[in-house]
């Protein structure tokens, strides 16, 4: 039973050759995502200016050879800040989703395994949290716990827990009555042991798809909250806050402080969303 389920979810093992990697990279979302991740990791090596060193005598300078993306109203080099912001946005999103996804998946698997009152309580919790729009809920959390990068990660984690809990629970619910689970129980494996050793591995595909999808949401939430002045401490570079600080100048014909960080968000969300969609489509095909 276990091997059958595994083959449904992970039926493409053994394809990890260089040719496969090259084939993957030909897909636009993967290519863009790899590009953005490389920027996040190695970007600071190529950034021509310190992103926290303002040049107050050179504010709102148009794009030029000296400043490829121009400068903003602080005199910061926008190109350098867009690069540095990639690291901040991706790391906050990844960290928040890893924490939230991890806790949510474990709780979902536990609810699926135990059922009964615990399952009922966890589901009601999920329904309550999910009755609020995600951004509004994140805003309320910020109002309660305050702004800052650490709390941004916390907020991302908290809004992700219900999403993972509900989906992983429904994915794993059929396993509760599976024979191999009974066998594991008879062999003396404890409840948490069964959840970690048998339930979670059977939801890997779902967790990965969700992880990619929720990363895209997380980037949007971070940008949205920073746009309205919450989140990353100023003057650290962050795409949303960069768009906000430049928004007032668009009507004056100064488009560059907002457009370039905006493009960075569009590319990131396109890449992560695209990957998630392809992964889900692949799973769907696999399960049919």
């Amino acid at each position: 039973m276990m091997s059958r389920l595994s083959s449904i979810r992970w039926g493409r093992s053994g394809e990890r050759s260089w040719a496969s990697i090259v084939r993957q990279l030909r897909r636009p979302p993967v290519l863009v995502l790899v590009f953005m991740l490389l920027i996040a990791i190695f970007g600071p090596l190529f950034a021509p200016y310190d992103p926290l060193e303002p040049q107050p005598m050179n504010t709102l300078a148009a794009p030029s050879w000296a400043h490829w993306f121009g400068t903003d109203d602080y005199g910061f080099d926008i190109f350098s800040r867009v690069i540095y912001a990639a690291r901040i946005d991706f790391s906050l999103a990844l960290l928040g989703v890893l924490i939230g996804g991890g806790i949510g998946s474990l709780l979902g698997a536990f609810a699926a395994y135990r059922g009964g009152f615990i399952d009922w309580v966890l589901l009601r919790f999920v329904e309550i949290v999910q009755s609020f729009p995600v951004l509004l809920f994140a805003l309320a959390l910020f109002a309660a716990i305050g702004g800052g990068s650490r709390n941004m990660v916390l907020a991302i984690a908290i809004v992700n827990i219900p999403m993972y809990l509900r989906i992983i629970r429904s994915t794993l619910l059929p396993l509760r009555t599976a024979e191999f689970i009974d066998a594991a129980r008879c062999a003396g494996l404890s409840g948490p042991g069964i959840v970690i050793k048998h339930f979670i591995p059977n939801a890997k595909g779902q967790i990965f798809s969700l992880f990619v999808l929720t990363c895209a949401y997380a980037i949007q939430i971070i940008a949205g909250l920073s746009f309205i002045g919450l989140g990353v401490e100023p003057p650290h570079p962050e795409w949303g806050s960069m768009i906000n600080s430049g928004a007032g100048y668009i009507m004056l014909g100064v488009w560059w402080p907002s457009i370039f960080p905006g493009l960075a968000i569009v590319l990131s969300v396109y890449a992560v969303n695209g990957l998630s969609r392809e992964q889900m489509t692949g799973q769907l095909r696999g399960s049919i």
Partner: protein
Amino acid sequence: MLKSLLIRFAVMAVGVLSLLSVAQADGHRTLRIAVADDVATMDPTFGQSGATNLFLKNTYLQPIQYAIPAGSYESTNADTTDFEGNSVASWEVNGNNIVLSIRQGMTFPTTGNPVTADDFWWTLERALGTKAGPAWVWGNVGITSMDQVKRVDDWTIELIDTRPSAIQFPLMRDQTLGLLDSKEVSSHATDDDPWALEWMSRNYAGNGAYVLDTWEPGTRIVLKANPNFFADEPFFNRIEMIVIPESSNRLAMLSTGDVDIAFALSAAELSRAEKARGVKVLSIPDRQKLNVGLNVRPGGAFEKVKLRQALAYAVPYDDIVFGVLKDRAAKSAGPMSVNSRFFSLYNLADMPNYYTDLDKAKELLQEAGHGDGFAFELITAKGVPHVEQAAANLKSSFAKIGVDMTITPVSQATMGEKNGQGTYDAFMRDWLTDYVDDPYYHFFLWWGTGVVINWTGYSNTEVDEWYQSTASIVDDSERRGPYRNAIRQLIKDSPMLWLADGDYTLAVREDIGGITLHPDTLLYFRPLNRM
């Protein structure tokens, strides 16, 4: 037939042209102003925000005012040594008593009630009764009880046993002291609300140079010239204050000519405004200050003087003055603005001062026991571009001496709360200005131990003695010595980083003139005109 048609056409054309010229003339005498926020209250007692104070100053009649310069001019500074009557036509000082002659022949336009000494008496009684802003103002004039206010006759009030000081008369021009229609306001009083606070918050009861025409909350407020005003009719017979929260939209409306004046533009926007056709930017040296307040209380982050001095030497003054503020400011030289009348009168330019010297800053940091650097949090007013930009420049410069400054933008309410409670390391607020240009006013507000807005928690017994010794001295030359001592000590102790003394800036259409800069920076509408 043809002749008849031509005559009809000619008559119609003349009619249309006449209507158009009347409309144009009306537009010519209408002033449109883009403001950032709405008027919060019609009650002079509770004015707080800029737009509200602007409204109160122009629609209510304060007892006196700084003399408005005569003649034609684009802009000028009000003469803060010369006063003229407003609701009070004249006054006479007899020792500690002041006899006020209420201006005769005035009425309140919304009710037609005549203005008498009863209105002045009741307005003052209400001010003391509400214990709000004007009670504080009258208290510093020396009036704390209605026993000190005597109604001599229908047109005369005597203030008894007042406290003569250099700020006594300047305080009586405060926008919170506007005269109220006592009959009208008191008719709305109830047992629960004896001063009709609720009614006054939404209803107008004054007789300033302009009176309320319509108020569409959140959208616009329209004023019309007071037909019964005691002085000459102003050039503009209609003022429209249009609420435009976004500064870039205010600038766009000014550029297209939809408004004549745009308030509260950022330094970068002012630079853009200068390049717009038909727009001019006035930049008048003023006393408003951009400061960083340090928490110097025992146990506070900046208890050590040398630590404060180290930061004062690490401030990138030129970057802030010439870069962030686009040269519309001057480097500060201490607590009194370089544009104060007293800066030259007391020769404060010869005081010791701070300048950017990172080596010296590092030495002082070492002496303060923080050679390895230290970290602190700066709270800033949220959404004020030049404050955020100045903070970013400070952060960058402080990092060079090993000081890690975290910037936390907060709302005005949070800023006020933290300032009041002293629960912060450092704060930055922009364009703080004394509504009266006087060192006594400055010290008894900011630097006396435990005084009203001594947010830094600074306390020095010598400074207290120096400024308090001048409390009843009116003569400027007699006060020179104590204030030079107090200012020197304050600069040495550096409870604030005095960054810049900003200009009063205003973006207007190029035909607007008659702008007078008062110490409270509230624009006076009456002298405005089209040049």
